[in-house]
């Protein structure tokens, strides 16, 4: 399901299936996309931040077109205890690998992979901070 911002329209609430993973997309060339994501985050229930949220940053292929500081995005990821993935969706090969990564994460969040739950993402992040 794709949305340009949150909250999702309430009229369709009863038809909507359970949401297992929320991917917030930020285009590094657009300051507006970061603001939009920051505003939408406030509509997300706290329970999602136990591994069911991730930030996907695209446009990193062109450093010269940057409108957002990467440190600002990393701080956002830290503040919300969620992983930040950097990619360049304008390249077809990277589109495919990114989709595969997200699909894998989704499988874990939906509980389809035995022995691994969404909470593992949170603990993975904490380990890299301690290094």
């Amino acid at each position, binding site marked *: 399901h794709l949305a340009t911002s949150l909250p999702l329209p309430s009229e369709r609430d009863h038809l909507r299936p359970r949401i297992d993973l929320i991917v917030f997309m930020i285009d590094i*060339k*657009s*300051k*507006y*996309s970061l*603001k939009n994501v920051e505003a939408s985050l406030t509509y997300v229930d706290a329970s999602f931040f136990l591994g069911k949220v991730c930030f996907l940053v695209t446009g990193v292929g062109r*450093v*010269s*077109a*940057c*409108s*957002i*500081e990467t440190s*600002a995005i990393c701080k956002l990821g830290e503040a919300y205890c969620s992983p930040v993935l950097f990619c360049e969706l304008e390249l077809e090969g990277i589109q495919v690998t990114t989709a595969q990564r997200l699909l894998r994460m989704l499988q874990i969040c939906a509980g389809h992979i035995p022995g691994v739950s969404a909470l593992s993402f949170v603990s993975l992040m904490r380990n890299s901070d301690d290094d």
Partner: protein
Amino acid sequence: ENVEPQKTAFLLRKAWTLYSVTPLYRFRRGRLRDYARLLSAFIAAEKQKGLAVEVGVELDIKVAVSSLADLGGSEQDQAAVLVQLSSRSRVSSRNSEDKLVWSGWFCSVHGDDLSENVPEDFTCLPLFLTHGAESYTSMVGSWFQKTFDCCFRRLAISPLNLSWMAAMWAGCKLDGAASAVELVFSMPRLSQPLDISYAIHPEDAKALWDTVQKTPGEITQEDVDVFMDCLYAHFHRHFKIHLSAAKLVKVSTAVASAHSDGIVKIIHSQYLPGVLMLLTELAISQIQ
């Protein structure tokens, strides 16, 4: 910073194309005349090879290489090097004057980040600015690359850096009438290219910056973000367009103007060292 205005006046009000340059190996300040001769011979040879610039009138290119007056900066900064190409038409050699056809200068203003970490035989002049035909730029660049084993790259300026320039320069104190602060945005993903030009009265821009800047004399990313957000919000209120989703491509102020393609025009002599310091920093970060 006291920079002699007469000596650097020719640097002002010209559109300079920016490059980053890696340190020059075995560049000797005492050999500038030799370098001019060698470069002149190189250019003549290139022209013989048929890479001539002008078709028709035969032009002799005279090269002058000199050290440039103090541009402000630290003790560790190397003095700037100026290269000038002049032409004298062979046809009317009796009362012809040399005409300046191309100039380029290497400089470093507060480039300590780079010069501190470089071995002895290297001269650090990371910023290269050119004005004139691209063909001359590539000839001069090739000669320097061959002679001093350095590498030139066009310096692109990101929207992030352009917004720093907008905030810094809009906030400068200027005597007399200042020109408007103009920001040009390129709208993304349209079939026809569309640019939006946003002009702000210089006094309003300075007043806004003065309220935003938290510590006088210090500029933080947060200050710049708030400044730009105010401008975006104001524009949105009137035109319902989110400029923050567009790409900032050009900033023009009374102090200087800069384009994302790496083209800069410095207007106000008082702020020449400040602008050069910022550009030196950009050049160094592109090299590293």
